[in-house]
């Protein structure tokens, strides 16, 4: 199972990288979103999959699955949401002021 998920992560990372390297700013933002999906899965997988029960002490019996990666991912999900929101707004505000969504055209704008 872990190997399978890791291969999936590899595909996600490759897709995300390709998107991030493109010129269109929406593709870049989507790329970062996919990349954060991949990283969340990666953290969870490295903690071991299906090693125990739900980490709720009153609801299930030991052994429990590792709770630390879950806490880290929870933090990461919220942060990546905040960052996505921020760069989305940054992108469209840049488009409104400069008039392009092409990263190559954004280069060297004198509006610094």
């Amino acid at each position: 199972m872990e190997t399978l998920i890791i291969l999936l992560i590899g595909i996600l990372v490759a897709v995300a990288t390709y998107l991030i390297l493109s010129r269109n700013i929406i593709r870049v933002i989507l790329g970062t979103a996919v990349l954060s999906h991949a990283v969340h899965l990666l953290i969870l997988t490295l903690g071991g999959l299906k090693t125990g029960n739900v980490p709720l002490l009153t609801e299930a019996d030991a052994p429990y699955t590792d709770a630390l990666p879950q806490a880290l991912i929870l933090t990461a999900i919220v942060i990546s949401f905040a960052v996505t929101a921020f760069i989305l707004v940054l992108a469209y505000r840049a488009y409104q002021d400069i008039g392009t969504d092409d990263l190559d055209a954004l280069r060297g704008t004198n509006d610094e």
Partner: protein
Amino acid sequence: MFSVTFAIILPFIIAALVPFIHRRFKFIHIGWLVMLVPITLFVMLARLIPSVASGKTYIQTYSWIPTLNINFTTYLDGLSMILGLLITGVGSLVILYSIYYLSTKESLQHFYCYLLLFMGAMLGVVFSDNLMVLYVFWELTSVSSFLLIAFWNHRKASRLGAQKAMLITVSGGIAMLVGFIMLHTMTGSFSIREIITSIGDYTDHALFVPAMILVLLGAFTKSAQFPFHIWLPDAMEAPTPVSAYLHSATMVKAGIYLVARFTPVFGGDQIWFWTVSGVGMITLFWGSFNAVRQTDLKALLAYSTVSQLGLIMSLLGLGSIALQYGYSADSVLYTQATFAALFHLINHSTFKGALFMVVGIVDHELGTRDIRRLGGLMTFMPITFTVGVIGSLSMAGLPLFNGFLSKEMFFAATVQIMNADVFSLQSLGIIFPVIAWIASVFTFVYCMIIIFKTFLGPVQPEKLDKPLHEAPMGMLISPIILSILVVGIFFFPNLLGAYILKPAMASIYPMFGDPANLTPSIHAWHGVKPELLMTIGVVIVGTLLYRLLKKWKPVYGLLSSRYTFNAFYNNFLSFAASKSTIVTNKYMTGLLRDYLVYIYLFFILTVGGFFFYSGAFSPNFSTDARIRVYEVILVGVMAVAAVAMLFAKSRMTATLLNGVLGYSIAIFFVIFRAPDLALTQLVVESITTVLFLLAFSHLPDWKRENIPSKTKITNAVISVGTGAVVVLVALAVLNYDRFESISTFFEDAYELAGGANIVNAILGDFRGFDTMLEVVVLFIAGLGVYTMIKLRAKKGDENSEN
């Protein structure tokens, strides 16, 4: 009770206050207040002279970074006393002088702030026992010197001179830092006192010589020794009080101080002896030789300072030989060189300080310091003339002035060194008196130039912008005091010897027992000895050369300007600047993609390359959990959705596919027993999709990207490579069991945090700090979004952005 630490800190405190005081009392010259600082410190230090002379030292330690052996230890002994008195004493006089030199129209708050900064830093250098602390203060003197040289920063020459001084002294400082670290590696201590006591065990250490050379580099750059002397003449762009203070009396003496301080550490080694005395001798000659051809009085004094610094440096080198012999009646003779060095250190500060102030007066009152435009000032400026003559004659080494005494001792030391039978001195020793004598002849010549070309000869009022007149009395006080010292020391040299120089000798030769044995009685007349004959020779030949100056001056034309050290420095600087511009422009393209490509390539090459190189990759599939059919289907759906994003025709499709990925991951979270994550992921994914759709109403639909297929292939290769390396790393780490898992700790959440939901207990309690900061990040992002949208500049007042 006097505290040395207080002496270091006081100037810094006042420096911080100066701008505020200046704002409150604009009508008073702020210099009057600033002058109280060095006067106070001078008095406090002077009160300690008797106890220091009796061999007492003052140590104070404040723990700073004890784990790294770095403590704020101040140490007051004879050697640091000399420098401390010079810094505060000359400092007081210079500030008094500057009050009349700088009008209130200048930005005085900057000037005195920098000057106090320098004073504090310089006191820090001489009073620090810890090498790291010393280094910090050392660089701080370079920084404040930079600020002071560039005080008139509207002048290009000032800025360039400041830059040159900064580059050279700071580079030397960094070399010195490396040397200090080597010393620490060897001895395990940053304390100079501890290093001195333990260095005997490490003289054969592989780092001993490199550390010595690096420390010397720091000293030589700071004290303007050949070939690093080129910064000092350019530093003369500074206001004259600064030149008198930093670039003749104190900062350039820091290198001398360092060499003296490290003599007990490195002295006695052949390389130390030859480097210090050799470089000093070359500097002595080169400085005096070049001073003769200067037409700008300040440049002349700069070269003369270089030369005099070389003299002191070479004396310290000569004196270090005594440590090779160890303590005996014979070796004491060699320590006289060191004694002469310290003596001349003080003398030079007095006569050179006076001379700088004289030149400053001439420049300030007449508007020029070019000797071709000056002459005959004696009748118009009698007091200035008197001070100038006293300073010049002292520098030339003539009797009735303190320079004569130390110059004689210098000659004596060079003659004495020929008797040494180590370091191949039997054959090479002769070069010391020869070079010393030749250099002294040139010294005599330029001293005559100062006197005759400036103050005697025909007056040339038509070449001057201002009428001839004597300077205001206030400006004359400081040079007069200094010239009184010049004469006074000549008549009472042994007072200085017993109270100031004797304890300093004890600091340099700590293992030589009673410093009284090392302190000779200084006499102006000691019979017809070689040194006296040398002085007489200097006067005769010097007068001859001065008379024939016009005949032999073309010699200087032979020195091609293309091969000077200045040209080398300039070429190196412009070469470095142009080449680094080219290199930087090559890879700083301004394209986001290029920068990302660097990052990804670096990641692939280093991480992937390391796996390939180390052969660390040994995956273990045996612990894999079982795979069920629906999981395979889910993985397949995600893979297809991900790849389909690359070929999506519209941004809407791509966003929805991203949503598919997000919801599939939520299902995985359910499968992998993470209910909190699943819930969060579901909600966040929904909100993110809404966000994308909202933002799309403000963005254009995406067009087909016309990217050349070559770039596409590169991107694809990098993407696949990144994915592959991530897979490799993940597989390698998956079964890493070198350390025990910490997750069992969190399973006691109910007892420790009172919560049955472990994930939540971690978020709220165990790692609450993370969560708190995360909330802050979230908040900042929200604020950022709000500001970008709501607080944009209105059309029409676009200038408000800049």
